[in-house]
Structure formats: C-alpha cells, structure tokens
C-alpha cells in the first residue's frame, strides 16, 4: 500500500497514493499511519488528493489514525476529492478534522 511521508518545513505530509481507502486496505492504512504519524509531534497533514473513494471502513481508519496521535493533536486533511468530501460531510466527520483545499493551503496556514 502506497503511503509515503515527507516534510515541508516542520510539517509532516503523508501522501496516500492509492485511489481507494476501503475495507480491503483500512487496517493496513491504520497500522501504517500509526508508524508515520509517530515521526512528528507537530502538524501532520494527510494528502488525500489521489483518493477517489472512501467507504465507512476507510473513514473509520482515518479517524483511528487521528486517535493514535499523541495528546490532542488534530490530523489535518488536504485535497479531498468530491466523493471523499461527500462521505466526510454526510457523516459530519468533516467537523473533527482540519481540512485544507490542497497542500499549498495546508502549508501556508498555521491553524490556531
């Protein structure tokens, strides 16, 4: 599963290069996110611009990924495509993440 990490300044950017976060990859995604998010105690942005589809398992895995982060850190999301955005909005899970349009927006701002 293609999940890669890089840094932009102090921000850890994790890019999900698979097109689907669904039941097939949800557990793997959660496990790999645990490892990658531990590399930082600051901001972490999950780049979802390549993800075209997410089901309830995938949504749960993204929530779990945030819960795995230490303290009260928020997982930030970037580049939600239309279907993924729809799933987050319908379930109101868009209210629990900081969501950026794209990586430029994510790295330009410093959330309060």
């Amino acid at each position: 599963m293609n999940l890669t990490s890089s840094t932009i300044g102090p921000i850890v950017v994790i890019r999900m290069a698979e097109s689907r976060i669904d039941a097939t990859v949800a557990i793997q995604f959660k496990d790999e996110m645990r490892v990658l998010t531990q590399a930082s105690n600051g901001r972490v942005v999950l780049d979802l611009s390549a993800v075209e589809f997410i089901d309830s398992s995938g949504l749960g895995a993204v929530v779990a990924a945030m819960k795995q982060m230490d303290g009260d850190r928020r997982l930030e999301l970037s580049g939600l495509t239309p279907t993924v955005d729809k799933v987050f909005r319908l379930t109101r899970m868009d209210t629990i993440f900081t969501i950026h349009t794209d990586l430029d927006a994510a790295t330009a701002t410093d959330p309060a």
Partner: protein
Amino acid sequence: MILTLTSGPEAARQGLAAVRTAFLARDMSEDAISSVQMVLAEAFNNVVEHAYGEVPGGWIELHAALERVGSGWSARFDLYDQGRAMPDDELPAGLPAEVDVATQDLPEGGFGWFLIRELTQDLHYARSDGHNHLSFRMVLP
C-alpha cells in the same frame, strides 16, 4: 442489470467497478455514480463481513433497474445472498455518529448503515428460504 459475485476480499471492488461501468454506459453523472458506490460499498461489505463472516465463496447477486426521471434517475436495487440472517432479523438503526465528543471517544465505526439510510429510500430487509434480500431505491441527479 444483474450482477453475480462470489464473496471474498475483492467482491466489493469488483461489484462497484462493474456497476460503475454499466451506469457510465447509461450516461449517469459522476455525482450520481458516487452516491450509488457509497451505498453499494456498504451493502457489499456487510454481506462479505457479516452475512458470510469473511468466509469466501458465497453467492451474492445484485439486481439494478434504472429509470430516467427528468434530468436524473430513479434506481431500484435488490441484493441477495445466502449468508447468515441479520441479527434480530431487522436492519440496524444507523444513527448519526457522535462528533461532539473528546478525540479519544470518537467512533471508528457504525457509519455504514447511517450512509445507507441517508442516501436511500424504501430500505427493506427480508429473509426467506435461507436467502437475505436487501432492497432500496435511490433518487439520483
């Protein structure tokens, strides 16, 4: 269309891809197809994970009928399998997830039936002759 699948780790992806191809051929919009995919992903996953308990090989059949309504569609779906019955023979409530809670108390599951109920109408479940039958309609753009 009638789609027959064999339950297993790839069943949902295969089913969704087949439906997408068929509906694109009917000129359904991407927005409408994404709603269909969201519902069918949950329905297929439920059959694979719960009706068949992750045991591969079971029979799954989807019937889909589309009707043009204005610039959109009315779609009727019937999903059949021969797995275990729904607990208590009834559909889960699919209540909205709690979002106004501390991070550690956020739910990691239970979104599936909520999404199905949110996006469908006339959702019914019936069991007869060792078959599960889930049916629903969708009004699509």
